[in-house]
């Protein structure tokens, strides 16, 4: 038996390895320090994530482990997003690790890091198996994290719901994968694309089996992205799980789902859903789901009284906007998705950080808690307002630029081809629902600013949380006004993933 060991190129995956090891270090440190140094663990985690980010810069592009590990602009970009969301989630966790998590701080942070490692592997994979395993590595720690308040019924409920949905979607995904594999005889996405194209040319049709696979995969990933009708776990899980974890779910896990989606559909299935089969089916389906997400998320969010639930519905809606970019498969589409997630990272993580800060102080996530906050804690209120306005897409904040790019993608594609005029409607729905969305975002601003009486809470956030909020604020404002470097970077993404503009 001959062994041909693949080229490892370990340098490429230095960040992942480091992060994994660092997670172990954090576990051990927590154990050895007898779980007393609560902040130190957190700072250690932050440090690890920072270093990992630094290492990311050294990797460069290329591949390792045969076809298992790719480092391309898309992977790199999303890894930054994963690390950023982990960083901000960790930063906003200092309140709860002081108050609520008494025994398992090391595990808490370590699991966040392991989940991040999973996301990073996912982003680097070009193959269904490693993709799926990355996804699992992402979600399994999150099951645990969601249920981390073991005595809190809400948290446990969040855990179990997330678990059932996670596993269920995973099963659907696998079933879909199995058909893809069966159709193409391979699990490598690029090869799969080639094989399917060849098959198509040979037979003149692919039948409906790919459709079954596609539907299954969309359903499976739809759960991750919380696209209606696969969204219903999201509000419950967000509400129940610890706030930083909800934030991490809403950004990190969602971004992971997006990467998977982009890899399978945009990169994998796009090419062979060519002109002959245009307009592409998954585009239709996803478009419908995006529509549903925008409408449903924005509308239902209006009447929420719990801010975490509101942000959950808002994130459902935001997923809808992102999917517009995903559907618009042209030179703008993936860029728009990437940039959108980037902008969304800052705004959403910032908002959740403030929710966490307020929750630490008041123990409540009701929107009414925010009444009069602008007078007792003006800084927080300003930041919250900025984040919400960014989420609503008001210029000159980053959220606006993101929405602009997404709609630009849709409209440019719609203008290019008769087959895609329906994208106008998609963009139209998006724009109109963006107006709706302002209503509930503004509602919180209203609570904070418009009430005459002062809030009884004087909130003194801890330093890491302040840092997270500051990062969010800087990101939202800076990348709203000067986003050029990011946009330049993002430009490489579609080319690297083999999207052919048309």
């Amino acid at each position, binding site marked *: 038996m001959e062994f041909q060991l693949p080229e490892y190129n370990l340098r490429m995956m230095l960040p992942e390895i480091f992060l994994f090891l660092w997670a172990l270090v954090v576990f051990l440190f927590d154990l050895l320090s007898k779980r007393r140094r609560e902040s130190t663990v957190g700072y250690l985690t932050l440090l690890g994530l920072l270093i990992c980010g630094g290492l990311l810069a050294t990797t460069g592009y290329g591949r390792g482990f045969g076809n298992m590990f790719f480092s391309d602009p898309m992977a790199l970009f999303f890894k930054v997003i994963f690390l950023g969301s982990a960083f901000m989630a960790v930063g906003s966790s200092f309140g709860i690790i002081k108050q609520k998590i008494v025994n398992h701080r090391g595990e808490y942070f370590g699991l966040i890091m392991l989940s991040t490692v999973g996301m990073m592997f996912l982003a680097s994979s070009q193959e269904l198996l490693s993709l799926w395993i990355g996804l699992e*590595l992402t979600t*399994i720690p999150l099951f645990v994290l969601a*249920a981390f308040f073991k*005595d809190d019924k809400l948290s446990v409920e969040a855990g179990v719901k997330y678990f059932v949905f996670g596993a269920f979607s995973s099963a659907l995904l696998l079933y879909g994968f199995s058909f893809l594999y069966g159709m193409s005889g391979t699990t490598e996405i690029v090869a799969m694309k080639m094989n399917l194209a060849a098959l198509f040319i040979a037979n003149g049709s692919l*039948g409906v089996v790919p459709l079954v696979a596609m539907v299954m995969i969309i359903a499976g990933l739809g759960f991750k992205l919380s696209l209606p009708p696969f969204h219903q776990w999201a509000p419950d899980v967000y509400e129940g799980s610890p706030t930083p974890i909800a934030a991490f779910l809403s950004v990190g896990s969602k971004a992971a789902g997006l990467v998977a989606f982009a890899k399978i559909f945009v990169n994998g299935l796009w090419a062979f859903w060519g002109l002959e089969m245009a307009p592409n089916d998954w585009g239709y389906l996803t478009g419908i789901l995006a529509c549903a997400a925008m409408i449903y998320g924005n509308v239902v969010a209006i009447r929420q009284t719990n801010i975490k639930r509101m942000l959950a519905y808002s994130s459902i809606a935001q997923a809808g906007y992102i999917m517009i970019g995903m559907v618009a498969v042209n030179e703008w589409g993936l860029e728009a998705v990437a940039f959108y997630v980037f902008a969304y990272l800052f705004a959403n993580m910032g908002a959740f950080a403030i929710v966490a800060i307020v929750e630490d102080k008041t123990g409540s996530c009701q929107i009414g808690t925010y009444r009069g906050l602008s007078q007792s804690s003006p800084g927080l209120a300003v930041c919250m307002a900025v984040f919400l306005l960014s989420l609503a897409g008001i210029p000159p904040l980053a959220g606006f630029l993101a929405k602009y790019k997404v709609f630009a993608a849709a409209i440019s594609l719609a203008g290019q081809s008769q087959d895609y005029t329906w994208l106008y409607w998609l963009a139209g729905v998006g724009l109109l629902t963006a107006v709706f969305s302002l209503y509930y975002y503004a509602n919180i601003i209203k609570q904070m600013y418009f009430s005459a009486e002062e809030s009884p809470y004087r909130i003194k956030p801890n330093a890491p949380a302040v840092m997270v909020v500051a990062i969010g604020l800087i990101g939202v404002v800076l990348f709203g006004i000067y986003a050029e470097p990011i946009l330049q970077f993002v430009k490489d993404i579609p080319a690297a993933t083999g999207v052919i503009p048309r």
Partner: protein
Amino acid sequence: MQVLEPGIVFWILAVVILVSGFLVVTLRNMFHCALCLILCLFAVAGIYVLLEAEFLAAAQVLIYVGAVAILIVFTVMLTTDLASESLIQHNENATIAFVVCALFAIGVPYLITKTGVWMPAKGELISDNVGSIGKYLMTDFMLPFEVVSVLLLAALIGAIVLARKERS
């Protein structure tokens, strides 16, 4: 695509799988369910053997039957006072769900036969099952292998964290 008529063994295994699987989801006693699950998984392992995946069959027996199913049995015994009770074990979705699932069970095979377009087989399956799997694990699939180990670690830690009783 040619429809290969499978042997009698397949039919026996299939019947076992489906019946025991159905029992898993319908029986009221959770303990019985778990036992049925073990039976079902065994039968699946048999299917693997039929499909010339001996290593997989072994892994199935070891991991699933040996570990997971037993774990489930333990948990059932740990947690359920209702292990022996006969409560209604289905919720109100049952009727519709049954219809839908039946539809699914009929629909997917129908689809596959009706419109399936498959690539031609690329010759015979590699005979040295265990050996090649070992080789794959060390070469092409080395990275997922490592990642799975990380995953197992994470699951382990997580399970411990969750299952542990806190001293308070």
